[in-house]
């Protein structure tokens, strides 16, 4: 279906919900290969549900999700992850009771070649030296910022072709928010394709190439990040008209 060769992810009129509650009301969006897109909107606008629908945790009730041109709407979550579409959920979800290293190892669950796993582990440790230092400790005993690094590092162990990041700065002190966003920036610059959900709309639009603003399960606005940044009407998506 994809007309442009560089489109890695495409949503066509996707609807989804929880029981009788409708969360997504027909979402169309696109992420280009190598680019960073961001998904903005107030609480309850449907950002997290959009990411979950893409990664298969929530089943779309209608529409289509295409990843690298293939329909993954009905593909099981673990199979989607296997294909390289990696979702870092909100709240970090570090596996308590498993060491930092084991958390990272599990990130590479789908990677069968031990040499590749070792190489990726070294890369992650290079990116986050603190994880190397604390690799044998329980992952859940890391600080909030370190846990976020672990969550991202674990996703990188897959060798992701598309990274979905859900509120990576949530619950972090202001200084750590900036640090986390710097990491996201570095990943993007290194060529990773990213779809970012972020509470801090200003920072997200500064980093991203393209932005979508959700409201009540609809896409209310979309455009170049720079254009959206300059548009004051984005405030209305958050604070009403």
């Amino acid at each position, binding site marked *: 279906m994809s007309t442009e060769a560089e489109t890695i992810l495409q949503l066509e009129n996707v609807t989804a919900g929880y029981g*009788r*509650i409708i969360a997504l009301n027909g979402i169309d969006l696109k992420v280009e290969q190598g680019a960073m897109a961001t998904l903005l909107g107030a609480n309850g606008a449907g950002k997290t549900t959009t990411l979950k629908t893409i990664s298969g945790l929530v089943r779309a009730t209608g529409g289509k999700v295409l990843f690298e041109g293939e329909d993954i709407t009905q593909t099981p979550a673990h199979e989607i992850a296997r294909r390289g579409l990696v979702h870092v959920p909100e709240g970090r979800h570090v596996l308590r009771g498993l060491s930092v290293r084991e958390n990272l190892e599990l990130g590479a669950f789908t990677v069968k070649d031990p040499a590749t796993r070792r190489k990726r582990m070294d890369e992650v440790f290079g990116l986050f030296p603190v994880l190397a230092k604390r690799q044998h400790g329980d992952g859940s005993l890391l600080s909030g910022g370190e846990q976020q690094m672990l969550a991202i590092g674990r996703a990188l162990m897959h060798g992701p072709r598309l990274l979905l990041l859900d509120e990576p700065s949530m619950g972090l002190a202001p200084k750590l928010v*900036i640090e986390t966003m710097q990491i996201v920036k570095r990943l993007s610059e290194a060529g990773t394709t990213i779809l970012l959900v972020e*509470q*801090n709309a200003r920072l997200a639009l500064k980093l991203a190439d393209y932005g979508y603003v959700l409201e009540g399960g609809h896409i209310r606005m979309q455009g170049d990040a720079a254009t959206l940044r300059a548009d004051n009407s*984005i405030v209305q998506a*958050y*604070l009403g008209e």
Partner: protein
Amino acid sequence: MSNPLLKLSGVSLSFAGNTVLDNVDFVVGEGVIASLIGPNGAGKTSLFNCITGFYKPQSGSIKIDGHELMKLKPHRVTQAGIARTFQNVRLFHQMTVLENVMSGSHCRSKAGAISAILGLPSQRREEAEIRAHAIECLRFVGISDEMDRDATNLAYGHQRRVEIARALATRPRLLLLDEPAAGLNSGEKQDLLDLIGRIRDELDISVLLIEHDTGMVMKISERISVLDHGVMIAEGAPKEIQANPKVIEAYLGQEDGEDLL
């Protein structure tokens, strides 16, 4: 501004060293529709829980009409005139709509357990009154046709109405609604707006709501208070709030540090 009905001063709440509410001052006037908004994790539901007695704040005071509520148990708070609904609909299973709503009236029941067991005439009279009142509440929210159905079999929007009717059956002076529009479609939202307006206008009950749908909040509220990280950062009319830089920053993020990127 009208007389203050609910007045919070200096309310602080913390769990295991984490501050959830930090010295919050907050007023809801008599006969007002007010809203409490703020980003995720700002402490809105915690504030509701403090008002209704589910949480005990470490310091401060919470008064309704000058009566201190801080030391009261939740059912006493209800008797003092405050009713609430919950973020997720919480109806009693395997009870009809009417029974659910009647359960709301029992906090006003005067007959004791003994007369209830003995089925004394006073108790029977009271039961009939409760029933009549519950039906009246259901009629008010517009679902009296469904009063004999199992409450949990109703459409979601109607379940929300049952919850509101149950809250009304306690004959409150102040109604707290926690995200009443969550999961409703746009038509149902409009109906909800009308209902909230009628509750205030016809029943003379003040309403305070927490709501994420800021569009709806702006339409209905006369006063809006904004909570961010446990701190009350703004208070005012909808237009003032929309233009308040502190509120915009709370919702869209700060500009500090942007240059580092």
